[in-house]
């Protein structure tokens, strides 16, 4: 989908419809979660410590380990 099509589509979708606005927020949140999983797994594969991963994400190493510690083999 080209940028022009994104704009055309945005015109045909009513962004003041709560159904659309809330779905946009939820979709963005899910997308961020997916990207976080991928990049945390990638960093761990490359030998980053939980401390370093947490610092890059702006959260404590405990928080990032609690969230991602059991998904180390995601990219494997």
């Amino acid at each position, binding site marked *: *989908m080209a940028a022009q099509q994104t704009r055309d589509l945005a015109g045909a979708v009513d962004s003041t419809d709560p159904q659309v606005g809330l779905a946009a927020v939820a979709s963005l949140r899910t997308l961020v979660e997916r990207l976080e999983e991928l990049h945390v797994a990638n960093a761990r594969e490359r030998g980053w410590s939980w401390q370093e991963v947490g610092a890059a994400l702006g959260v404590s190493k405990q928080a990032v380990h609690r969230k991602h510690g059991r998904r180390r083999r995601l990219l494997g």
Partner: protein
Amino acid sequence: MFERFTDDARQAVVLAQEEAVALRHGWIGTEHVLLGVLATGGDGARLLAGFGVDAAGVRDDVVRMIGRGEDGIDPAALATLGIDLEAVRERVERAFGPGALSRRGHCRRGGVSMRVPFCRRAKKALELTVREATSLGERDLRTEHLVLGLLREGDGVAAKLLTERGVTLAAAREKVAGRDAA
């Protein structure tokens, strides 16, 4: 609202839901209702065939325009923020391999409903379907009235796709009314 719908018109709404789920879209938009009408193959599909509109062509355009979503990620919703999910997917897959964006590290929450809500424009189109049928003096709401409702709504993706194909509300109304009179 659905009490006056014929079996075909109900079927079109059911298929609209299935189209939205299959494309991983987060709501039923006017484009899914249009796909539902075409998939049902009743008088609405025949009316549209008269304008050269077919299901395969419309589905291709919906996929080209909106793209496919992921569980929990709606491409049309992201487009309202200027985010092109297709472009994001392409970059993520280039870095992490095919299907990287859909790969789940954990199980989905249990009991996630597969029912998808209607967006406001699709609801509006359904309301206008009732009015179109009523103004034609029809009690039953058939799939061709759904087509008129989608056209009269005017701002949704379905209206855009139909207008691009040269289908106007006036011409469609004339055909429906002409057949009713015959």
